[in-house]
């Protein structure tokens, strides 16, 4: 049984597989050793839980495959090409693999470290745009407001509506995804808002970048609910975006600077830092890891991270004070990836839904990514839309008129999905519902 000789090594590069993958330029920086890869024993139990593997069925688009690529690159066995970067950036960073992994492999940390070496995704122009946005726009609330103001103007003046008529298909779809900018940005009346009734605790609140610009109402609702439940709420003026997008898109240095600014801005004398965006909460719970090599901030970052709580997680733990008025609604619940997988918070939001008396109908795969994933839906529109279609089918099958998704990215994506596929479903944040119930 002698095997036939294998064909000789290639002289001719075969045809391009997918334009999006071949797009980025080769990377100069070598891949360092990332200790977390050692925990992976290659069992493959993550494969079928990975959204991109489920769509492509390709090993390189699975968590195990991506870890293997990072490992091979760090051992010098594999050049860090654009194609390698393509695999790492087709990942949604949903971290469903971490939930599936029996060995406790911290995939998110591996992927973030690898992306830090790769830099932002895509072809040169896109990389420059992403980098510029992440470095110069995200850390500056003033510039963010300016940009959002311009978008609002374009939306109001009919410019966007016009563009949606004249632009070609793909660009038009991207425009449709852009949510309405709030008529006013979030601006709390004071830096510290007192508890309503007897004070039970003192917390700080992250007002967030997207939440402040697109979901002013929800921020206000969150603070009302916190105060009604006996929380004195500090909303530090000096706070900025949490830096999650930066960490996820290969801009870890700017993310570190943003984390340091937030750690300085938030008061120490609070029992919790409450966050109503799942992605931000997950990122801030990792501040200790992010600043682990910064001797000046390491310990403070660890202490800060230990105080971070998702709003639902925090309120369920605290216990609702007032008996809310029952809300007669049938809802389904979308587990935001960075809440269910990133923070392991699943039961608490459901407990709060039960407390306000809504009827919860679970959808199939509620903890599977909807395809939003930060700026993923803009950068990887095809995969994003495939996952969104599946998600909307699952939501539709529940018959619920409302889907609750406590994260801005998911909310924008699901609203776009409802519009795109013509599904009459209302997308709400958990805090919105609690506020309506008078909780």
């Amino acid at each position, binding site marked *: *049984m*002698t*095997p*036939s*000789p*294998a*064909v*000789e*090594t*290639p*002289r*001719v590069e*075969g*045809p*391009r*597989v*997918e334009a999006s993958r071949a797009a980025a330029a080769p990377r100069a920086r070598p891949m360092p050793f990332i200790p977390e890869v*050692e*925990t*992976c*024993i*290659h*069992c*493959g*139990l*993550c*494969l*079928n*839980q990975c959204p991109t593997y489920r769509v492509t*069925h*390709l*090993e*390189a688009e699975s968590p*195990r*495959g991506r870890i*293997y*690529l990072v490992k*091979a690159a760090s051992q010098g*066995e*594999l*050049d860090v*090409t654009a*194609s*390698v970067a393509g*695999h790492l950036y087709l990942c949604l960073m949903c971290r469903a693999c971490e939930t*599936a*992994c*029996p*060995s*406790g*492999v911290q995939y998110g940390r591996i992927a973030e470290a690898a992306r830090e070496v790769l830099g932002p995704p895509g072809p040169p122009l896109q990389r420059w745009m992403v980098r510029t946005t992440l470095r110069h726009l995200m850390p500056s609330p003033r510039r963010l407001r300016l940009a959002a103001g311009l978008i609002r103007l374009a939306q109001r003046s009919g410019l966007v509506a016009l563009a949606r008529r004249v632009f070609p298909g793909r660009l038009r779809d991207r425009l449709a995804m852009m949510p309405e900018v709030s008529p006013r940005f979030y601006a709390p009346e004071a830096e510290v808002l007192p508890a309503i009734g007897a004070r039970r605790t003192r917390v700080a609140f992250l007002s967030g970048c997207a939440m402040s610009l697109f979901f002013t109402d929800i921020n206000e609702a969150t603070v009302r609910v916190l105060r009604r439940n006996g929380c004195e709420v500090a909303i530090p003026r000096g706070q900025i975006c949490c830096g999650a997008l930066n960490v996820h898109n290969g801009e870890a240095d700017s993310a570190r600077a943003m984390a340091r600014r937030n750690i300085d801005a938030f008061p120490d004398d609070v029992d919790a830092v409450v966050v109503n965006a799942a992605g931000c909460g997950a990122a801030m719970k990792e501040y200790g890891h992010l600043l682990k090599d910064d001797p000046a901030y390491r310990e403070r970052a660890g202490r800060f991270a230990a105080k971070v709580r998702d709003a639902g997680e925090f309120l369920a733990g605290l216990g609702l004070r007032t008996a809310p008025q029952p809300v007669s609604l049938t809802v389904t619940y979308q587990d935001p990836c960075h809440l269910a997988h990133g923070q392991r918070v699943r039961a608490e939001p459901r407990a709060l839904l039960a407390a306000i008396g809504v009827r919860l109908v679970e959808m199939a795969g509620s903890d599977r990514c909807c395809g939003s994933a930060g700026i993923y839906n803009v950068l990887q529109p095809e995969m994003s839309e495939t996952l969104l279609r599946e998600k909307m089918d699952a939501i539709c099958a529940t018959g619920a008129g409302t889907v609750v998704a406590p994260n801005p990215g998911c909310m924008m994506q699901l609203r776009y999905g409802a519009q795109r596929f013509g599904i009459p479903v209302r997308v709400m944040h958990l805090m919105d519902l609690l506020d309506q119930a008078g909780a």
Partner: protein
Amino acid sequence: MDRFELIRRLQAIVGQAYVLYRPDDLTVYEQDALMVARHTPDLVVLPEGTAQVSDVVKVARQARLPITARGAGTGLSGGAIPEAGGVVVALTRMTRLLELDVASRIALVEPGMVNADLTAMLAPHGLFYAPDPGSQVASTIGGNVANNSGGPHCLAYGVTGNNVLGLEVVLADGTVTWMGGRAHDAPGYDLTGVMVGSEGTFGIVTTVAVRLMPRREAVRTLLAVYETVDAACEATSAVIAAGMVPEAMEILDGIVMRAVNKTLHVGFPEDAEAALLIEVEGLAESVPVLIERVEAICRAHGARRIQTAATAEERLNLWKGRKHAYGAMGRVGRRTMMLDVCAPRSRLAEVMRKVLEAGQRWNIGVANFFHAGDGNMHPTPFFDFDDTSPEYARVIGLTEDIMRACIEAGGTITGEHGIGLEKREYLGWMFNERDIAAMKTVKQVFDPDGVLNPDKVFPTGRPVHGDPRAKAAAAAGQA
């Protein structure tokens, strides 16, 4: 045929996106779940449908390339490692349920269907597919067929071979043929039986006709907690000797339970050295009687405590914990080497003692979680060095001692993971030359040119994976 021409012709069959040729796309296919060996394929092809598989095989044959079929790559014996290079045919895109006949309790599925997905699809019909390997959330039916996979519930329902009625197979020359069918006893030769467990060396399975089981009326699951693995083994033998066949009897040792507890909150005891997970199914009237008898035997053999799953959720949790045992080994040691051996059920405790003694002798920790009911053991050495380290010789010494202990007691060197390349050099420990020659004759019939998953199953005389003694000897020979 040059490489460019080969890629072009394969692309014409399966489409551009599904012929992989870049180094990064190929490197991820150089290994399955056996971490101590690897080899990069020349190309990976992902066909969709029987006709495409057949065409891919024909083109690969024209290019004179070996062909290795692959499912999800969860195999633990290296069966999907393309040791001779060539084309890897990954069947992961073939995931369809082609036909479901609820009345006849038969389903036709494509080989890439994930085992757990099949059972999930059957649940609304009150049916399930019985073989449930630990990897079932990821492993494919095709891979299960290739390895004749088992699982906890095979104690009552039999292994994959007992649950497959027929197979559509692409033979080594690209011919498509059916073996067996939908009937429980097809006329003529039982070629399905020959094909199941042939580890991709006889052909590529493209459709599987599986037998489905109805969900039982009642199910009870209990966890009997013991001070020693020995006691849990004795209890298992006693239950079997009493003439009872629970649906599953699984032993987990303290190392494994504590590792699983770190990830999942499934209620395994933190302070015990062993537990016996038992499941009994049947009629609503008979199950309580059976479980009472099982409990009595467990207590008589020193069970410190018996926990019964009160709810369906508790039951699923216990099973989830069991199914995550192998994966959780990543928390125990940097490297693990999960073995798959069998001992007669009456001598389980004796063989287990020898396994633990061997671990002490070679100074390597051994964790245990296994299908005690049918004597299929999975001693899992864990250690912190690589297979390239000189210390790895101790791991090989240990695994050989464990296999020897099993054979001496009347057991075997593999239960359900297959021979692959991991165990091939030990086939001679079980079979004499005439036995092996007879097996080779069958291989010759199916694959006269030796192109299907070459060099698997049979001894090659080459070292088993990273044997440093052999590597050192080879280096000395070259110098």
